[in-house]
């Protein structure tokens, strides 16, 4: 059972309030009884790799009851040995950030606002757009009779922030549609 921080501090506080009499005295070099327990006690730890640059630093995420408590460098990681840069050190605010997207949003043509939508709705609607565009723009053969089997009506961008397994599925998915306008950050 954890001691509540407030109760803990309160109890010690009463004791030292007597110090008021030694108004300008030299403080006693006492061992502080009030130093709070570190916030990472009783957390589960898991390792991760920084999502920013290509150095690939290791981090430890401490979580309690499904909530992120702390994220700092993994001292066992041979590259960063527990150290980080300002961005890597700020990942806690990627995890806990009220600006994060947590709902599917849709913007209708001409609208000035987002509407919240369900995944089911969005996926079905997107699939309809994909089919309509693909079917309308698909070129099986060029004028010279050569097979090309592609659509130039759909483009795909991005991937440098995804995991390998995600990139792989993205590559596979895009090619299954016949997309050749497939590019990402490596080009720019």
């Amino acid at each position, binding site marked *: 059972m954890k001691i509540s921080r407030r109760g803990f501090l309160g109890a010690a506080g009463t004791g030292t309030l007597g110090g008021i009499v030694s108004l300008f005295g030299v403080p006693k070099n006492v061992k502080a009884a009030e130093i709070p327990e570190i916030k990472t006690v009783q957390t589960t730890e898991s390792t991760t790799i920084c999502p920013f640059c290509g150095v690939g630093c290791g981090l430890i995420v401490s979580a309690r009851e499904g909530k992120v408590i702390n994220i700092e460098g993994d001292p066992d990681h041979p590259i960063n040995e527990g150290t980080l840069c300002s961005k890597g050190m700020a990942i806690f605010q990627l995890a806990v950030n009220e600006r994060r997207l*947590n709902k599917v949003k849709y*913007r209708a043509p001409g609208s*000035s606002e987002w509407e919240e939508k369900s995944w089911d709705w969005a996926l079905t609607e997107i699939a309809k757009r994909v089919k309509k565009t693909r079917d309308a723009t698909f070129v099986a053969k060029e004028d010279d009779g050569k097979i090309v089997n592609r659509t130039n009506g759909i483009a795909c961008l991005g991937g440098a922030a995804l995991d390998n397994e995600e990139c792989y599925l993205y590559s*596979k998915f895009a090619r299954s549609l016949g997309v050749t306008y497939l590019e990402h950050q490596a080009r720019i």
Partner: protein
Amino acid sequence: MTNHWIDIINTDVAMVMGSNIVENHPIASKWLTRAKERGAIIINCDPRYTRTSSFADIYCKFRSGTDIAFVNGIINYALENDFINKDYVLDYTNASFLISEKYSFNDGLFSGYNNDTRAYDKTFWAYELDGSGLPKKDLSLQHPRCVFQLMKKHFKRYDIDTVCQITGAPKDIYEKVCRTYTSTWAKNRVATWLYAMGTTQHTHGTQNIRSYSILQLLLGNVGLAGGGINALRGESNVQGSTDMGLLFHLLPGYLASPTKADQTLEDYKKNNTPKTNDPKSANWWGNYPKYITSLLKAWYGNNATPDNDFGFNYIPKRSADYSHISLFETMYSGKIKGLFLFGQNPAVGGPNTNKERKALDKLEWMVAVDIFETDTSVFWKRPGVNPADNQTEVFLLPACSSIEKEGSVSNSGRWVQWRYKAVEPIGESRSDLWILDALHKAVKKEYAKDGVYREPILNLNWNYGNGAEIDFHKEPDVHFVAREINGGFVQSKEVMILKDLKSFKKGDQAPSFATLQDDGSTSCGSWIYCGSYPGHTPEKNNMARRKKKDAVNNIGLYPEWSWAWPVNRRIIYNRASVDLTGKPLDLKRWVIRWNETTLKWEGDVPDGPWPPNDKYPFIMKPDGHAWLFAPNLNDGPLPEHYEPLESPVENYLSSQQVNPAVKLWYKINPEGNPVGDVTKYPIIGTTYRVSEHWQAGAMTRNIPWLAELVPDVFVELGYELANQKNIKNGDLVVVETARGSMDAFALVTRRFQPFHLNGKIVHEVGIVWHFGYSGLARGDSANLLTSHIGDANTMIPEYKAFLCDVHRKEGGAA
């Protein structure tokens, strides 16, 4: 990177040119610091004095866009003073190869140039072959047409005075750079070259890297610990995303994406598989047919059969350039109707973003997947645009963050590292893996009844353990995907590996790409990842390994920490680190060595198991040698200095002002692509990042702690220019090019100094490019200034050098 981050500790001289390593890869500073403690010299060459310059021992300024002149001068210095590693050059490079009589170079042009197509006929630069089809060689390096002599002639024009007139580098410091760097020609000294987008983002970016590579090869620095050519990748998985083929011209594993010339799988194999008549050449790309066939099996499974060419024609074929600039030019013309965006923000990061934002207006629909609202996903309500006028439908799908999912990422040193899920995705956000899985399933369902050429969709091999239906609560099993990428046997098969016959059963995971087959018996999603997950259980997931034990050579390889492609090799081209008997060139920091007793290699995983000198070391080249002279590039076999598209000076060396092989978008599509003139825009502009933000800012500009550190966009300029323009530190100023203008705060600093170029004084300013109109920290985008022009080989945009003007904004005092 040929090497990896920790290996920086092993160097004697580190050249940081074309990167700002301390600011943009800060943890590399740990290893640079340790190299320094060992006595290494750090050189930094940059137009601006950065946090890297502050860290370096030698700082040499030079003008943006003149890297080739700068480095060609160092090459000339090495050649003139004979500061080269002769054995290495002779044994391991194509220095002794004879080149066709048709090769010549005159006034900035190589032979074979066609003015109308702006392209070279590369046969003019081919090797001269002997009767058996092998390149003729002159091992004395004296033949006037051998690569070495052609190089001497080519680089002679880059003497120190000429280089300083072109680049604006101070002569005394430049000489010191030449002296220090070329000191590593000695066998017991080694230098590393650390570059990034400062190198690649030019109309001659590929040739910038070529000049570094040539120098490194002449000095014998490739393949060794503390050496190499090291591209510092800027995103956590831009290495992996490239490895997985997210570019128009590549399939996973650097296999070419099919072109119209590849009407059948046979055509494709023939067009892409290099051949050699030299038994000593490993010619690794000779295995092309195995890798493409295994990829087709991974993608189309049982639907890939010899009868249907393993589904080869399911993959779209290209017949043009579909690179980023071309993509946005086409979008601007209205031909692209729909766009998927997974974590990319071109409204900030794309060149000439005024035009790219307008191109987005032409879309019928956009699907943006991200963890925050990005500038691109809200392009329809960007400043100056009335949403009512924009007809694009936008679907914004919430992705979860990297700590809310499991999977692997590949760092710049090719280490493929596993990440674990720490907490559940917030709200209704999902992993990109789930989103991609759901998108495929939704599209497949849409095509169940009818549709155009449905086979590639319906026959796609897609089963990741979470059922055929979309289920919000069922993630695809990322281990299934990882194992598909690694590959395995779809039929039982006996495979000869070196002299051993090995049996594999149907369903076995492949231990390495040496076991992959071209008969359809193996499947592999990305052959270079074969070996990353050679079993069926998570214990066999090599990417998740965390053993912190060094290899016998004790040079920081950590071979049991994660896994590196290819085949866990930590330093590639390592067969060039030994002499012809297998003895390390550098005994202190040896990478591999041949054990005469066991008849095996020790240390790192060698570039192939063959005994020393059985095969040439550069196994990915059909001739087995590193190419000092590269007859395959679009803009010449040797690097030549050209000015950026927009430059304040005329080319000092030739009448070819700009790389003659680049595509001139301003001529093809003049609308929205104006080019600035020095009379109106006399100042050089460049763009860069700061340590505290990342790329187009979607993540970091939404992090309050980082927004606090760098809250606004700023332009850095020197005191002389600031005085001329009556600009004070902190003023709000306007930076303007032919394409657009932006507001920024002026930071007047001694870290930018004017350049003296052949009697002319030229100023340069630099702008951070992270900013945009969305997010917590907002500001104008520097890419409003940049243009649609790219490198002649890679089509990477020329972000790093353009012409601009700067003036105080009316009423803009801070």
